[in-house]
């Protein structure tokens, strides 16, 4: 069996086994950790065996008959754009599994649900068929709905419903776009490699624009970009810690991954025609997300809005990659490389921040930033981890965020100079994180900080793992960039067709 298929179906099988009611909570938690660790090991194996495939081809490929009637098959494979996300996904899920070792509420079902989610997320990133992609896309929404409604807090039911309806609606638009691609292709196919090699709708301005609009709408809701982001803050603030970590760390990337995997290479003509809209949405998302985050007093809502900001950088960069200019080929590649790096980086850092927010809620049942003070005194280890994660999120060098954002800015500004206004985003995020650090951790110990116990190994080990990988990327980025750059070069070329 193909390694990628094992990667997808192992957690699915484990999830099915965990549905047996007789399995004890302890065993379930153990299975959760062991399977996610095995998944990480498998992903590392895929990475170790990975050789950059030829332009337009995939590595570790497998194809099997599935629904031949509509030209859809079970087709999986990875390249430089997806492999980093696969590894990042397995890391985030392992971190979540360790964090959940003390879960008291239905641990068996939670482990099953999250293993199912891991299978779905990995399945999406390795899909090379639009129907397969769509199935995973929608199943992820279903899984996350149950995670929020079943293990969330406060107004969880309502937030879960809002999340489900909004993103599900977005997925319908996406499906419409996929059908448009299918209908326009000749011979009709849902195969992503085929559609990329022979993009339909080239030179069909209106039809191409409409199909792109449908795809973009679906991806914009999932990412989310301004103005489709309002489901995100309530979903995060009411989700359990590991739910938030997976939602922000992995699931938001499904939207941005769709841009680089589907919208750009399959609709290059339309993408170039509408690149300005994408850039504008990116810039507005960057600034809007940062400014609104600046005004928040609830930790989780603040992090949620910084996600809008960080995903805005990705959107901005992929938009800029669609603007052809003389001698800007290298800059466009740099922008795409930055965008993919940002997906990985944001996954690591935001997952870390949400796990830390979860530790806070476990102790005090509130995310109110004004309720604390001098927490560095009572919980020094927690303060250290939070500070590192916050500095990573504001783009400090030596962490992965800088590698991502530097390339995004350099590449975008070189292609579309007006994107320089987005650099203000890193200033506002710096201001908001420093202010949050100041409010919560410094000053005399006060309010909820009194009696706040420091994080236990079960809590700090997964966060430290995520941050260590972020630092590794920040200091030695070549390991990652050597994989991404060839993929980004191919994509920049495909968009330029």
């Amino acid at each position, binding site marked *: 069996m193909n390694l990628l298929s094992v990667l997808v179906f192992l957690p699915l099988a484990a999830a099915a086994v965990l549905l047996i009611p007789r399995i004890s909570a302890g065993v379930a938690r153990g299975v959760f950790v062991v399977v996610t660790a095995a998944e990480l090991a498998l992903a590392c194996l895929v990475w170790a065996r990975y050789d950059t495939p030829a332009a337009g081809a995939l590595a570790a490929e497998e194809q099997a008959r599935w629904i031949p009637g509509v030209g859809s098959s079970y087709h999986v494979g990875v390249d430089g754009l997806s492999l980093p996300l696969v590894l990042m996904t397995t890391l985030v899920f392992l971190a979540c599994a360790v964090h959940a070792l003390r879960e008291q509420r239905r641990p068996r079902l939670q482990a099953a649900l999250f293993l199912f989610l891991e299978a779905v997320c990995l399945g999406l990133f390795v899909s090379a068929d639009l129907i397969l992609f769509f199935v995973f896309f929608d199943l992820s929404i279903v899984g996350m709905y149950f995670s929020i409604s079943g293990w969330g807090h406060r107004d969880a039911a309502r937030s879960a419903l809002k999340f489900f309806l909004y993103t599900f609606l977005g997925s319908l638009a996406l499906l419409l776009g996929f059908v448009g691609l299918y209908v326009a292709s000749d011979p009709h196919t849902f195969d992503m490699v085929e559609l990329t090699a022979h993009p339909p709708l080239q030179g069909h301005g209106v039809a191409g624009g409409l199909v792109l609009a449908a795809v973009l709408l679906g991806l914009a809701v999932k990412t989310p970009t301004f103005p489709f982001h*309002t489901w995100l803050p309530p979903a995060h603030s009411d989700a359990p810690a590991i739910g938030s970590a997976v939602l922000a760390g992995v699931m938001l990337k499904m939207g941005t991954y769709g841009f680089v995997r589907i919208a750009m290479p399959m609709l290059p003509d339309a993408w170039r025609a509408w690149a300005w809209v994408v850039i504008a949405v990116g810039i507005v998302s960057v600034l809007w997300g940062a400014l609104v985050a600046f005004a928040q007093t609830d930790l989780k809502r603040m992090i949620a809005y910084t996600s809008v900001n960080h995903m805005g950088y990705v959107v901005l960069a992929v938009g800029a990659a669609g603007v052809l200019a003389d001698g800007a080929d290298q800059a466009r590649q740099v922008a795409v490389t930055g965008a993919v790096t940002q997906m990985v980086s944001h996954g690591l850092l935001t997952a870390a921040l949400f796990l830390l927010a979860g530790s806070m809620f476990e102790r005090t049942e509130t995310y109110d930033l004004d309720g604390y003070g001098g927490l560095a005194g009572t919980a020094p280890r927690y303060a250290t981890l939070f500070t590192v994660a916050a500095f990573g999120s504001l783009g400090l060098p*030596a962490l992965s965020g800088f590698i991502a954002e530097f390339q995004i800015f350099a590449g975008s*500004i*070189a292609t579309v100079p007006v994107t320089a206004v987005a650099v*203000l985003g*890193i*200033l506002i995020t710096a201001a908001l994180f420093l*202010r949050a650090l100041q409010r919560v951790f410094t000053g005399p110990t006060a309010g909820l900080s009194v009696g706040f116990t420091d994080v236990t190994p079960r809590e700090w080990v997964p966060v430290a793992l995520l941050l260590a990988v972020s630092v590794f990327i920040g200091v030695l980025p070549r390991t990652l960039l050597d994989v991404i750059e060839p993929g980004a070069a191919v994509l920049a070329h495909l968009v330029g067709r």
Partner: protein
Amino acid sequence: MHDLVLVALVALPAVVGALLVLSGSGADRFAVPVGVGTTALLTAASFAVSFPATSRPTVATPFMAGADLGLGVDGLAALVLPAVAVVSALVLLAASGTPALRTARFYGLMLLFVAAALMTVLATTLPTLLMSWEVMGATSFALIGYHWRDQETISSGTTAFLTTRTADVGLYVAAGAALAGGAGLELAALPNASGGWRDVIAAGLVVAGLGKAAQLPFSFWLSRAMHGPSPVSALLHSAAMVAMGGYLLLRVAPTLAATGWADDAAAWAGAASAVLLGMVALAQSDLKQLLAASTAAQLGFVVLAAGVGATAGGATHLVAHAAVKAGLFLAAGIWLEALGTKRLSSLTGAARLWPVVAACAVASLLSLAGLPPLALWATKDAVLAAAAEQSPTLYVAGLLGAALSAAYATKALVVLTRHIPDDAESRYDDERNGTRAVPTAAWLPLLPLAAGALLLGVLALPPLFTDVQELVGGTAPEPSTFELVMSALLAVAVIVATVAVMLGVQGRRSGWPRVLTDWLFLEPLAHRLVVRPVEVLARRLAHLDDAVLDRSVEATAGGTVRLARAAALLDDRVVDGAVVRVVSGVRRLGGLARRPQTGQLHQYYLQALAVLALVLVVLVLVR
């Protein structure tokens, strides 16, 4: 071998520093020996890579965006690198005299900062530079806010980081422009970028340099930074951080010159800072604030040097000023620890208490005043000679800045060396409880620094200056004897005049305008023009996000429910109603159809007759 040393110069303090920070209070015992030992090694390494003048080691490894992560020693770096290392080592030694700072966190952060500063000196590409540049900013935040229990100091750290990061935006933009400009991201290649892009690069570099160097209009962060521990000020505001702003501009001076305007902009910004912040320094009543404003003013000379192409003069001024200011900040820190105050009026006569501290401080202040033949007299003239070549106005502005240096240095000197007033004891301890003692570790580092403050001027005087010019590159004019004598006379005259005035106004309160005592109102202005509007905008947008965007989504959802209800109603009343009506109509027809079935035979006959008649009529009509 030299390549390895070059990497170690950055990697060693970075790794040791990170380990110290992460290991927490358990490692406090090792903090001082590890910290001081590391910087001692760095000092040796810095000389080793700087002074085999024949080989200039460089190392590079692929990094990102087509650029390398590159370190290299060129002439300019060879001059500045040892200065940064030496000052770091001396400051870390001095810090061990303060018990509160003998922690793993403090020494770890300092080492991280030193790693970033050394990397800034060695950086050969823009990504490398930006990397170290921003880490320097972030560690300065942590160092200034070291005593985090105090909200004021942590907020000063935030101010410092945010202000310098605002200027750093210039570097990000410059990187984008460099990528577009076609010449690549190597610092040395930037002058070759194509026309318009080169202008953008230069503008970005100037903004970034001015921000770090605390030049106008960014100077206020330096004032706030004085809330940090004194050893932090001694390192950040002498040889590193602030100095790195000036260093960057010296390094990219060819790029600035290539634009034809950026060099002038830098020169004027530097001259303006030298004059205006010199006036601010003169008006200060707090020793550390005076020194801070003086730092910004002195860096003005370095920035001016970058603008007029006097790279060698600027570099020697940078190095000499590092020695002078590190010593003075350490001395201020010693008095703050021992006497519990840094207010000038309370420090009256402080120089009479501990003779070694006093001698070193006096030497440094006289050097700062530009008294010949001390260091800053010569280095500053090396800068001004080039300025005179460019524009007489710049030269005059520079002389004015020099005169102001003489005035504020003398002001501090007079206060510190006066007789100790009888009520001195009552004025101490207004900030903390002084120890009334000076540990050896605290004063020992002052000696080499004072020696530097006295002697480093030789670098800017013949015959050595020619070698320095050759080392650093550039052919700026050397100061003429006339210029040297002129500035010497000016310094002496101002010193004498200041002493006279100071003795005259003894006891009276000085009436400096608030615009000078409050640093030109830069911080309130930044608050009013930038911080407040952004905060208001953020609140408005957050409200908009909730009240308009989210509400409209909710309204759509609510609208859908209402639409569904209306459809249900329509379904009940109209669709189902139509079905019901059809059914009842059929039923009525059925009722009608039943009427003829009476069971009466004669009526059936009549009905048959009627039907027959009807059929006949139809047949007749149809035919």
